[in-house]
C-alpha cells in the first residue's frame, strides 16, 4: 500500500495569487493513497525541503508529489531532496501548477480546480512509480580538438595542461589558423605572430598533445565518454620521421600556384609549408598542382632532399580512434566580395579585402610589409575602407553583424596612417560597434589622433577611372552624396561559417542556425555546450568572434572537458526505453524512428525455441528517453522507464473517471 505525500507550493505569489493552495492541499489529502498533504510558501527553499524530509520520516511516506513548477526547473532539486531522506530519487513527481495553471489563467476558482486535477493525475501516477537506478558508463579520458586555429590551440593546451591526452586535428599543413595570417591585433597592436607562435610551439612540444596536420575527421559515432572517430591523415608525401624541415625542396619546386595563406596576394610552390613559422615545419606536396602527378615528370624535391624524406608512394591513412570528448573549433571563412556588382565584381585589382590587407601589411607577407597597391605597385596616397560588406545585409544572406570588422578597419586605418604618413584614410560605416575592453577608445584614436575620416553611410558604387578607383557613397549625417578618388579600397567582408560546416554538424549530430553557425545548447547559460553531451564549441565556428572572446570560450570548452574527465565514470539516466525482447519481432521500426541511433538490432537466443533470432536492444548510453520508439512499437513491447503505459494511463484515468 503506497503512502503518498503531497506538497503544494505557493511560489511566493506566483501560484498562490491564482490558485487557492490551501484548498488544493486539502483536496489532495483525500485522494487515494495520500496520507499527508500540506502547502508552503517556497517548497524549493531549504525550510521547504526540510518540511518534505521531516514528513517522509514522520508519516513514513514512500512517494511524493510536489505541486509547484515545471519539472525542468526543480525536478532534480526534489529528487536530491527525497534521496537525502532515504527514498529512491525517482519516487517523486512534479505537478506543474505554475506554468500550466497560475501563469496562464486568471479565474481563481477554475484555476484551483485545474490545479487539483493536475495533482490528482500525478498522485495516480506516483502510486505506480517504481525505483529506478543509474548505470555506470566507462569514460575514455582523451579529447579530440577539431581545428588548429587559436581556439583549438588554446583548448588543446588547457586540456593537456590538466594532464589529459589531446589529439589536435587540422586540415591545412600547419596549425595557426586565421590568426597566423594577421599582422597586428586590436586594440593593443600586438604582433599576431609574436603572441601566437609561442602557443603553436607549446602545442608541438607538449607531451600530451598529438598534432595531426593535413588531416580531417571523417566519421563520428558513439556518445559522451565513448566517441569513435575516423581520422583521415592525408598523404603529405613526406616522411615526417626523416624530414628535418630544411626547406630545400620548397625552394627547388618548379610549380608556382596562388597561396591560400597569402589570400592570392602571393604564391607558393606545389611542395610547400604555408608560412615560415609553420608548425610542424614539415612541407607537404599539393598533389593537385604537382607536376609529378599532372605530367608524370619532375621529382626535383626527392632529388634535392638530403635525408630522402620525400615519399611519392605515401597514401592517405584512415584510423579509428576513441575519445571521451570533442571540442569543435573549426573557425570561419571570409565571404567572397566578388559577388557584389556595384563594387566591381572583384575585377578592380586595387579593391581588396581586409584579410588581403593583413597580408600586405605583414613583414613576412608578399610585399614584406610594404604597402603598395596590387595593380601597379605604387604606394597608395588615398585609401577608402568600407565596413559591413556583406554583413548586416540580408540581400547577401547575412542578417548578422560580423562583429570584428569595425575594429580591424579602425586598426587598418591607423596602421596604414603610421606606415604612409600623409595618406588619407576614409572609412564608410553604418555604426561603429566597438564593444570590448579598450575598443571604443581604440577606434576613436584612429579618428582623433590619426585623422581617419569616418563617413557614416554606404558606398553605392566603386569603379576604375584611369589609375584612380572612384568611390561613390553617401554621408547620411549631412544627407549628401560623396565621392572619393582613391588609390586603393579595402572591403571589410562578412565572416561566414566554413563551407562544409553543415557536413561536420551532421557528422557530430549537432545543430546549426539558419546561417550554418553551430548552435550552442543555451545562448546565455550554456554557451560552450551543444545539445549532444560531450561535444563543446570554441571560437568563431559558433558565431563571429574576436580573438579575446575566442580564447575565453576555448578555455571554457577546455574546462568543460577537464570537468568531465575528472569523474571516475559516467552515469546513465535511468528514464530510458527498454525492450521486452521475448515479444520483439525485430520489425526495426523503433530503430528507424530513434533520433539518437540508440537502438541496435542484435541476435538473441529465443527463450522458448532456443533458436537464434533478431531483436531490438537499447543502448543505454545513447538513449535520451524521448519515448518515440515506445510510441512507435507495433507489438507494444517497448516501455519507457518512469513513463510506463500503466503510469500514463493511470494519469489519464484519474482525470477522465472523475
Amino acid at each position, binding site marked *: 500500500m503506497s503512502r503518498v505525500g503531497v506538497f503544494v507550493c505557493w511560489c511566493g505569489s506566483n501560484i498562490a495569487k491564482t490558485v487557492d493552495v490551501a484548498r488544493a492541499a486539502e483536496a489532495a489529502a483525500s485522494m487515494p493513497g495520500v496520507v499527508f498533504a500540506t502547502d508552503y510558501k517556497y517548497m524549493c527553499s531549504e525550510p521547504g525541503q526540510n518540511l518534505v524530509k521531516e514528513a517522509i520520516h514522520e508519516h513514513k511516506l514512500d512517494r511524493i508529489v510536489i505541486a509547484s513548477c515545471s519539472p525542468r526547473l526543480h525536478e532534480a532539486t526534489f529528487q536530491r531532496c527525497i534521496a537525502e531522506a532515504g527514498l529512491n530519487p525517482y519516487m517523486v513527481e512534479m505537478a506543474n501548477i505554475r506554468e500550466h495553471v497560475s501563469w496562464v489563467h486568471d479565474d481563481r476558482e477554475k484555476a484551483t480546480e485545474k490545479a487539483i486535477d493536475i495533482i490528482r493525475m500525478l498522485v495516480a501516477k506516483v502510486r505506480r512509480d517504481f525505483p529506478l537506478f543509474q548505470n555506470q558508463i566507462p569514460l575514455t579520458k582523451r579529447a579530440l580538438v577539431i581545428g588548429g586555429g587559436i581556439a583549438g590551440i588554446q583548448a588543446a593546451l588547457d586540456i593537456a595542461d590538466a594532464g589529459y591526452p589531446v589529439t589536435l586535428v587540422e586540415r591545412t599543413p600547419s596549425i595557426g589558423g586565421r590568426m597566423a595570417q594577421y599582422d597586428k591585433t586590436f586594440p593593443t*597592436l600586438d604582433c599576431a605572430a609574436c603572441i601566437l607562435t609561442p602557443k603553436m610551439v607549446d602545442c608541438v612540444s607538449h607531451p600530451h598533445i598529438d598534432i595531426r596536420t593535413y588531416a580531417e575527421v571523417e566519421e563520428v559515432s558513439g556518445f559522451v565518454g565513448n566517441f569513435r572517430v575516423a581520422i583521415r591523415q592525408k598523404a603529405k608525401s613526406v616522411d615526417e620521421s626523416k624530414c628535418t624541415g630544411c626547406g630545400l625542396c620548397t625552394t627547388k619546386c618548379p610549380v608556382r600556384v596562388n597561396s591560400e595563406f597569402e589570400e592570392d596576394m602571393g604564391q607558393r610552390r606545389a611542395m610547400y609549408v604555408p608560412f615560415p613559422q609553420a608548425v610542424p615545419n614539415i612541407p607537404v606536396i599539393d598533389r593537385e598542382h604537382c607536376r609529378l602527378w599532372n605530367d608524370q615528370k619532375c621529382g626535383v624535391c626527392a632529388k634535392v632532399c638530403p635525408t630522402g624524406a620525400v615519399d611519392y608512394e605515401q597514401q592517405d591513412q584512415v584510423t579509428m580512434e576513441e575519445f571521451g570528448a570533442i571540442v569543435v573549433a573549426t573557425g570561419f571563412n571570409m565571404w567572397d566580395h566578388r559577388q557584389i556588382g556595384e563594387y566591381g565584381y572583384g575585377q578592380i585589382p586595387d579593391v581588396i579585402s581586409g584579410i588581403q590587407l593583413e597580408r600586405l601589411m605583414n613583414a613576412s607577407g608578399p610585399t614584406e610589409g610594404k604597402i603598395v597597391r596590387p595593380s601597379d605597385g605604387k604606394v597608395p596616397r*588615398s585609401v577608402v575602407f568600407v565596413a559591413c560588406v556583406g554583413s548586416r545585409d540580408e540581400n547577401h544572406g547575412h542578417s548578422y553583424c560580423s562583429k570584428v570588422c569595425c575594429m580591424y578597419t579602425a586598426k587598418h586605418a591607423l596602421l596604414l*596612417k*603610421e606606415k604612409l*604618413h*600623409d595618406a*588619407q584614410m*576614409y572609412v564608410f560605416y553604418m555604426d*561603429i560597434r566597438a564593444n570590448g575592453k579598450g575598443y571604443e577608445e581604440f577606434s*576613436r584614436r584612429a*579618428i*582623433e*589622433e*590619426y*585623422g581617419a*575620416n569616418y*563617413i*557614416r553611410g554606404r558606398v553605392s558604387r566603386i569603379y576604375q577611372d584611369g589609375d584612380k578607383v572612384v568611390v561613390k557613397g553617401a*554621408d547620411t*549625417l*549631412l544627407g*549628401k*552624396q*560623396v*565621392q*572619393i*578618388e*582613391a588609390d586603393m579600397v579595402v572591403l571589410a567582408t562578412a565572416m561566414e561559417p566554413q563551407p562544409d560546416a553543415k557536413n561536420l554538424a551532421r557528422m557530430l549530430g549537432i545543430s546549426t542556425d539558419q546561417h550554418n553557425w553551430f548552435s550552442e545548447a543555451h545562448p546565455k547559460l550554456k554557451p560552450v555546450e551543444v545539445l549532444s553531451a560531450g561535444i563543446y564549441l570554441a571560437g568563431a565556428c559558433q558565431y563571429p568572434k574576436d580573438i579575446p572572446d575566442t580564447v575565453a570560450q576555448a578555455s571554457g570548452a577546455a574546462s568543460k572537458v577537464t570537468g568531465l574527465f575528472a569523474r571516475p565514470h559516467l552515469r546513465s539516466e535511468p528514464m530510458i526505453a527498454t525492450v521486452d525482447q521475448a515479444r520483439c519481432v525485430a520489425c526495426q521500426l523503433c530503430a528507424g524512428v530513434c533520433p539518437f541511433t540508440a537502438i541496435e538490432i542484435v541476435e538473441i537466443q529465443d527463450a522458448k525455441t532456443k533458436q537464434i533470432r533478431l531483436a531490438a536492444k537499447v543502448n543505454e548510453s545513447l538513449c535520451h528517453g524521448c519515448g518515440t520508439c515506445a510510441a512507435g512499437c507495433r507489438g507494444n513491447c517497448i516501455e519507457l522507464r518512469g513513463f510506463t503505459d500503466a503510469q500514463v494511463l493511470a494519469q489519464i484515468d484519474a482525470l477522465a473517471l472523475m
Partner: protein
Amino acid sequence: MSDDTPDKTANDLSNLTVGGHRSDPEFFERVNSLSGQNVSLCYQCGECTAGCPTAFAMDFKPNQVSRLVQLGMAEEALSCNSIWICVGCETCATRCPKNVDLCAIMDALRQMASKRHVKSPETDVQSFHEVFLSSIRKSGRMHEAGLIAALKLKTGKLTKDIPLGLALLKKGRLNPLPDPVKDKAAVQAIFGEAQTPGEDNGRQ
C-alpha cells in the same frame, strides 16, 4: 607605439567631393586653429542639436555644421544661416560628451564669413553684429540709443519698434547720450590685437 606617429589630425581631404562640391582641404585645419577646437573629436551623437534652443530656425543643424567642417565644406559652412542664428548660449558646449565647444566653432565660422565677405542669409543678424561691434569700438561700452539708430539706418526698418523705444525712453532705460569708458585706448588695443591680418588670430 612607434616613434613615427603622424601629426595629430593630419586631415587631408583633397580627394573628396561632397554633394558635387570639392572639399576644401585647408578649411578643417583653419577652423580648428581659429576656434581652438579639434572638430575630429565630434562623433556626431547629436547632443548639441538635441538641446539647441535655436536649432528649429537653422538650415544646417548644429551637428551638421560640425560635420560640414569635418568634411571641409567651406562654402556651405560659411553661407549657412545656422552660424548667425546661433546665440552662443553654450548649451551645446556644456553638454558635449567629447568636450567640443561648438560655440567657439560657430564664432570662428562667423569671423571667417565676415572676413571673406560671405553674404549671410540672416542679413539683420549680421547687421546687428556689425553695428554692435562698431558701437563698442567707439565708446568701449554699448550705447543702446546709438546702436538702435545705427541698426535702423542699416536695415532700413525705421518705423519698426517705435512704441517700444518710446516706452523705454520714458522709463529712463534708454540714455540718449553715450557713456564712454575712461580708457578708450585699452579698448582700441584689444580691437587692434583681434584684427591683426589673417584669420588665424582667434582663440588658441
